[in-house]
């Protein structure tokens, strides 16, 4: 039996819209994944703590506030502080094309705009998790 992929979906920053995040959460559920949804206004530390406790394969951030350039390195740092350097980070939301390359430098494995098809996101996560050595011993 193959185990379900576990994904944390978090909404960092101060904007109060989580519709997009919820849509992604449901789409990933429909793709057979277990999605831990944490809700609004998560700090990078909260996200990293949840990722650790839930032992997720992937962390997905929904960012609409425009603060992605600041948030991504902070979340990566918080993850690293918990020993989760290997957990891939993917981004969704409104992120200008010009920021994609620098965000990848900062540690975003995948970036999906509002137009991204959910099948595409699910396929990307599957491939990420299979490539990543998830079962390495601790």
């Amino acid at each position, binding site marked *: 039996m193959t185990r379900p992929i576990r994904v944390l979906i978090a909404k960092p920053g101060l904007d109060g819209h989580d519709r997009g995040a919820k849509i992604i959460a449901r789409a990933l559920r429909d793709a057979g994944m277990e999605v831990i949804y944490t809700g609004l206004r998560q700090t990078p530390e909260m996200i990293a703590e949840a990722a650790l406790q839930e*032992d997720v394969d992937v962390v997905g951030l929904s960012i609409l506030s425009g603060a992605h350039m600041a948030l991504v390195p902070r979340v990566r740092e918080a993850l690293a502080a918990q020993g989760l350097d290997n957990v891939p980070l993917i981004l969704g939301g409104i992120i200008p094309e010009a920021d994609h390359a620098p965000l990848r430098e900062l540690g975003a494995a995948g970036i999906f705009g509002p137009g991204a098809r959910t099948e595409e996101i699910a396929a990307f996560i599957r491939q990420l998790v299979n490539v990543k050595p998830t079962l390495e011993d*601790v």
Partner: protein
Amino acid sequence: MLARLLNGDRRALARLLTRIENQDTDAVAMLTALYAYTGRAHLIGVTGAPGTGKSTLVSALTRALRERGRTVALLAVDPSSPFTGGAVLGDRVRMRDLAGDSGVFIRSMASRGGLGGLARTTRDMARALDAAGFDFVLIETVGAGQSEIEIARLAQTVLVVEVPGLGDDVQAIKAGILEIADVLVVNKADRPGAENTVRALRTMLELGHAAARERLRADFTVEDRVENTVLSDWMPPIVQTVASEGRGIGAVIEALDAHRAYLRSNGHWEQIERRQLELELLHRLRDGLLERLLDQLSMGEIGAVIDQVQSRAIDPYTAVSRMLAETTMMIDQSHSER
């Protein structure tokens, strides 16, 4: 791994929980090693209909327990989609206030496949949390069927969450749910009708309690605690709360403490555990035996027997007793050869 777990390494704990949940082959070895360190935590099942405020209540309870210096682990179980096997686990949304506290550990889990499987996995995960040293392990499940009752049986105390709006209509209270309750909470007491709900619940409890006492007087066994859960002279207290505002939480803790003290005072704590272990051992034995039996039979052989039964050459009763006789003989032989 064990040393890290006992030292409070949260990463090690999280990884272990994953292995237990996935039923990895090495999980059994780890559970074997940590079993000696279990049996200290107070396991509390929290159940009730969707949206009654279980997560909010559990979060407020945890905060209050932390103020009293106790450590708390939370297991929040939500259903998997029967179609895709996926799940959205959203209980953490209500537990935001607990972030950043090393005396709290929150884990969400999906019900995945089966009933018995879920109960077993949940028990083993609760054991890992118990061994990791948490004083309380709270298990939240959505009251939607048999699985809650199964999971409730793992706990020493079961807290059932209801909300106002039942009026005096006792029919609205789900059958079976009151029988497993040790503590009843009427949450959302800021809404109209809370008093009526409390009254309706009390009436039902008193009726049920009288009947259960009659039964117990005639035939008092510990099994009744686990099978029917209504036990002798414990009358479940009914507490009103407004979990979203933290109101009434102190009274819930008092009720939980009172139940623990009650169980401890008259040996029921040990008796409950004994009965739970008996059930666990019987289940494991049954599974192990079944596996061995099936190992002895090829699908081809079973197919041939089905052919015979279908053509009425033999009846199902004789077929099974013959197969059992043959396979147990084979198991005997394979044993004496070892």
